[in-house]
């Protein structure tokens, strides 16, 4: 069993060590980066599956780094909640590589940042120490700033700097919160804190909670602190946006949930005045504001970025329901929605990147007639968008369902209403894209209307469009790029059927938290 105990530190250390290889090997080989990243992320995924197998088999796996006891050392913990995020991180990180092989960005330094980001995210998921969480938040953030800045053109640098300043202030806010909590309790370990906080000085703990909420609200991109997110998602290279959108805010939202349920404790927070209303308000306002802002966007990546604001609003609102109603159901909903949204956004952003690579289409209007030219991509994107709206059996439905049921059980009717309303509004922007793809004829097809072949909608049309755009030489889109989008769509639907299984897997964790 000791070999399983070593997996959590290995999952974090391996990508950090492997991150040095692309630069070192780059001295001799031009394209070593992709191979190193692919081997590492595949290995990580296998390790994550092995670890998940043990955790869901009923073992709680902890590892004390350096052999120091957890009172003053750092402990890594793999439990039912964290393994969901670890699996998501490793799977998406391995999947996105299928796109970047041909879709770019290329270069060995890119893959170094990529592996550092994965290491940081795995660290956030596995750590059992509140200060260590700050360090991993910053490692993943620094890698993200570098990845965003590697986009084309100077706008990417501006977006990255904006993200850097806001992100650093946010992480520092969290650190102040940690300072207050540490001052009151004298420990940094999550389990030790959970025992010490109820007896500690309430003023210090409340000040700490306030700073932590603000810090995480920025990191998770909640309205009105979301301003870094749309420009960062939009300006990042096409191959990077899926990774960032699927994982970075998800890991922060997971960390927030971990702080709420494990460190502060649901019961303690429920007894603290104003916490539940504040968290609920942040979540619900973000849901509505994010969706409304998404509807008025013309740029596809920007629209999807605002959609992330609203989807994470749902997760934060679910945390509010957990605090206000001590609702297990809402916590299951939050966990499923975190994973589901990660898969969905990764898939949709990959599809958007694929369309941008092959046609240069970036606005909603330019998506006209996509279904004819790229039936698989358009089909997958349609499935993913509908799942995001919450059409069963997509995974978006399951998450929203659990959150809504939790809200109804706790008799928080406004929250239930917001979730229902958000589904309608999500349909508004998803439908715009679907309508363009399937029911609006593309502009080049209009130009070649005299040809009778246009009515067939077959290969002749596709060839003509390709010839017009001069894409005859080498197809910029590889089979792997299309395959990964299709796989994302299939996974999104399969996870929808697996909703009950995920809830069962989380059961031991929930009984521990709520008793």
């Amino acid at each position, binding site marked *: 069993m000791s070999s399983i105990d070593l997996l959590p530190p290995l999952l974090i250390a391996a990508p950090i060590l492997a991150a040095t290889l692309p630069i070192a090997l780059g001295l001799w080989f031009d394209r070593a980066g992709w191979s190193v990243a692919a081997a590492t992320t595949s290995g990580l995924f296998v390790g994550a599956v092995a670890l998940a197998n043990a955790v869901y088999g009923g073992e709680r796996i902890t590892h004390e780094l350096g052999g120091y006891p957890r009172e*003053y050392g750092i402990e890594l913990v793999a439990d039912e909640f964290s393994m969901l995020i670890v699996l998501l991180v490793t799977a998406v990180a391995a999947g996105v590589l299928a796109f970047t092989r041909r879709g770019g960005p290329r270069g060995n330094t890119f893959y170094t940042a990529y592996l550092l980001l994965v290491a940081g995210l795995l660290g956030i998921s596995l750590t059992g120490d509140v*200060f260590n969480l*700050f*360090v991993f938040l*910053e*490692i993943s953030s*620094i890698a993200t*700033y*570098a990845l965003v*800045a590697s986009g084309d053109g*100077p*706008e990417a*640098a*501006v977006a*990255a*700097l904006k993200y*850097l*300043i806001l992100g*650093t*202030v946010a992480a*520092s806010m969290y*650190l*102040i919160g940690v*300072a207050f909590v*540490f*001052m009151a309790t*004298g420990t*940094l370990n999550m389990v030790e804190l959970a025992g010490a906080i109820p007896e500690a000085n309430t003023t210090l703990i409340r000040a700490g909670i306030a700073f932590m909420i603000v810090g995480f609200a920025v990191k998770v991109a909640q309205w009105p602190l979301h301003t870094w997110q749309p420009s960062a998602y939009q300006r990042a290279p096409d191959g990077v946006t899926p990774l960032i959108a699927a994982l970075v805010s998800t890991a922060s939202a997971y960390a927030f949930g971990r702080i709420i349920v494990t460190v502060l404790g649901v019961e303690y927070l429920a007894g603290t005045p104003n916490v539940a209303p504040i968290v609920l308000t942040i979540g619900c306002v973000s849901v509505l504001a994010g969706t409304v802002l998404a509807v008025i966007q013309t740029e596809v990546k920007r629209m999807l970025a605002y959609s992330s604001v609203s989807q994470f609003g749902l997760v934060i609102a679910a945390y509010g329901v957990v605090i206000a109603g001590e609702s297990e159901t809402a916590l299951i909903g939050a966990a499923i929605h975190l994973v589901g949204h990660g898969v969905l956004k990764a898939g949709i952003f990959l599809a958007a990147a694929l369309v941008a690579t092959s046609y240069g289409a970036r606005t909603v209007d330019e998506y006209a007639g996509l279904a004819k030219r790229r039936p698989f991509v358009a089909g997958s994107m349609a499935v993913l968008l509908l799942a995001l709206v919450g059409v069963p059996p997509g995974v978006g439905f399951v998450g929203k369902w659990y959150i809504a049921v939790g809200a109804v059980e706790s008799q928080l009717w406004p929250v239930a209403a917001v979730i229902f309303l958000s589904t309608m509004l999500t349909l508004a922007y998803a439908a715009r894209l679907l309508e363009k793809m399937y029911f609006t004829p593309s502009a080049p097809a209009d130009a070649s209307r005299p040809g009778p072949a246009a009515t067939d909608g077959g290969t002749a049309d596709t060839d003509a469009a390709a010839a017009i755009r001069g894409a005859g030489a080498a197809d910029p889109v590889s089979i792997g790029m299309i395959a990964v989008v299709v796989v994302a769509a299939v996974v999104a639907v399969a996870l929808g059927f697996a909703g009950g299984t995920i809830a069962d897997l989380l059961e031991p964790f929930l009984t521990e938290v709520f008793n």
Partner: protein
Amino acid sequence: MIELLTSHYLYVLTFVLLGLGIYMVIASENLVKKLIGVNLFQTAIFLFFVSMAYIDVDGASAPIVPHEGTPGEVMVASPLPQVIVLTAIVVGIALTAVGLALIIRIYSEYGTLREDTLREVRADE
């Protein structure tokens, strides 16, 4: 009130510094000064951590266990916050380096470091 100030003046000072840092981030139009503001903000947090280790223990010295004497009986400040601050300083340096690299790129592209000018230049494009 006065008594509180004299015994806890370090906390007051660190939070004044914290306020100065965040004000600089918000109010200054110069990107480099914004980054300096972020640094000031972080430094205030580091000082807060270090000072809290000393104030909690009256008359504590630096956490170095002397060669002679019983280690258990020596009053020292808690070493944990100081270790934390060391780590946080490293993180802060990395952030500053990335931030400055981005600012250099912005300057070479747009030829300005002022945010208002930058906004005008970008709006023209």
